[in-house]
């Protein structure tokens, strides 16, 4: 209809009635409001109960107080450095470059669990070792490990509940038993896990601790075959149990001081053990151990020969995000991996913003340089 067209160009359209105009404006408004509401809903603005990064941060700060510049968890720690010597035995399982025969530089961090950067060392406090293995020009691998054979919780919610339940009561300085019991009643998996953890009491220090990756991952080899794995770091140092004289010390840093002295005297070494899961082994629950007879492969040796305080060390600016994985190592369906990655990212951002104001940690540079020398 050519007339229509020419009319359309020449003449303006039939004017809208007042009501028609309002209806159309209303429709436009409705589209915008819907889009904005959807955006806000996805961002969690209408679900204050949703477990988010901010929620987790708030929980930590409620229990530990705010310590600007420090990690939210594992706040007390030192930087270590050294290398990983791969023996090639993991190549059939994983195509990751770090497992090719050779030496890879390592930047690590040894720390105690908990959000208080100046807490006194205590034997039962969970110890951890985080490693960043960065082969030059190839994909890096970051992993965090702790000295308990299974994790006490299997979900972000569980971790949050546990953090709040273990908050020390201001009156007694100890966790409120009622709160702890209520938490355990809600989390039977934690009760079972604690029983397993109790069976392996802490060793005398960091150097003779076995550190476990806890979460399951998947190794993928060059042929594309994927297997579930867990890993651990088994000390080459002789293992001795914690002695009562140790914990009776007045040195608030006795675990760190001993480790610093040892590392300054001679390198500390751990064998990296890969445990290969079988069909049916749980990969989505870090509280459940795998059967003891699973195949184990020694992939190489981690050797730490340098220790420094966080003030000068190279681990300070590293987020040991468990999802920084090379191809050849993939996440499993363990929900803790996403949870850890998400919360670590928020913690990293928070401490990055106030890094200049961060006081040196409990272990000052002078201590790490001189101890044991």
């Amino acid at each position, binding site marked *: 209809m*050519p007339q*229509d*067209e*020419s009319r*359309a*160009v020449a003449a*303006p*359209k039939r004017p*809208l009635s007042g009501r028609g*105009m309002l209806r*159309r*404006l209303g*429709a*436009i408004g409705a*589209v*915008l409001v819907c*889009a*904005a509401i*959807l*955006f806000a809903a*996805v*961002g*969690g603005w209408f679900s204050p109960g*949703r*477990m*988010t*990064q*901010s*929620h*987790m941060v708030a929980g930590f700060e409620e229990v530990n107080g705010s310590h600007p510049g420090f990690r939210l968890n594992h706040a007390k720690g030192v930087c270590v450095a050294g290398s990983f010597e791969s023996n090639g035995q993991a190549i059939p399982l994983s195509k990751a470059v770090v497992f090719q025969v050779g030496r890879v530089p390592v930047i690590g961090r040894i720390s105690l669990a908990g959000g208080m950067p100046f807490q006194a060392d205590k034997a039962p406090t969970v110890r951890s070792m985080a490693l960043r293995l960065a082969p030059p020009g190839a*994909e*890096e691998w970051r992993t965090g490990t702790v000295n308990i054979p299974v994790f006490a919780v299997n979900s*972000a919610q569980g971790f949050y509940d546990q953090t709040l339940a273990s908050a020390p009561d201001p009156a007694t300085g100890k966790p409120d038993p009622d709160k702890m019991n209520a938490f355990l009643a809600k989390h039977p998996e934690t009760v079972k896990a604690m029983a397993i953890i109790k069976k392996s009491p802490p060793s005398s220090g960091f150097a003779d601790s076995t550190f476990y990756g806890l979460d399951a991952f998947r190794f993928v080899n060059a042929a594309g075959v994927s297997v579930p794995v867990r890993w651990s770091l088994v000390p080459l140092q002789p293992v001795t149990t914690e002695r009562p004289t140790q914990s009776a010390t007045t040195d608030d840093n006795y675990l760190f001081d001993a480790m610093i002295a040892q590392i300054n005297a001679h390198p500390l070494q751990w064998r990296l053990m890969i445990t290969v899961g079988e069909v049916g082994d749980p990969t989505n629950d870090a509280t459940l151990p795998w059967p003891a007879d699973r195949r184990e492969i020694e992939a190489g040796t981690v050797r730490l020969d340098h220790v420094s305080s966080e003030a000068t060390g190279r681990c300070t*600016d*590293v*987020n040991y*995000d468990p*999802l*920084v994985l*090379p*191809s050849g190592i993939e*996440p499993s*369906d363990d*929900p803790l*991996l*996403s*949870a850890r*990655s*998400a*919360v670590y990212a*928020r913690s*990293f*951002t928070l401490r*990055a*913003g106030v*890094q*200049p104001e961060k006081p040196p940690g409990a272990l000052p540079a002078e201590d790490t340089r001189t101890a044991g020398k």
Partner: protein
Amino acid sequence: MIPTQLARFPIFSRVLHWLMAAMILAMLFIGIGMVASVSERYELLVAIHRPLGIAILGLVVIRFLNRLFSPPPSLPGTMPPVMRLAAKASHILLYALMFIMPLVGWGMLSAASYPIVLFGSLQLPPILPHDLAMYAWLRPLHTDLAYLLFATFLAHVAAALFHGLIRRDGVLASMASWRRSSRTPITGDNQI
């Protein structure tokens, strides 16, 4: 229905526009969702967010060049100057954000020394040195610009619908009409 008055955007421009519209909207929702999540979805969302952002960066370069070589149809002459100015300014802002957002994202991952993984072993090199102070500045900037981009997107949708439903001047159809035109396109006669 009354046919369009304005020339339409060339087909390639329309394809780019709608493809990027979907990608950017997805990015905004993935972004706001992943920073408020500790669930299993987090890993998947981050894994989509990175390559999608880089794809947008690539496409916006193509789109900018395309715009130089095939400029958009002129706005109708009936539009008041202030509306014209708003249209121009909001488009400059949209292009700027489409270009800057992925660069800030890439830059902040670089400054944090995270690997910038696209797919599998395909990674991008860092564009900034490992610098926590720089990361501390870029990370909130990424969020702030995302809110600005979402607000600009809403304004853009509002303006497009205003053209289409209230002014009915063919501006919406110049981008949104996919009808195959059997007629010679008619252009506004008093365009700038």
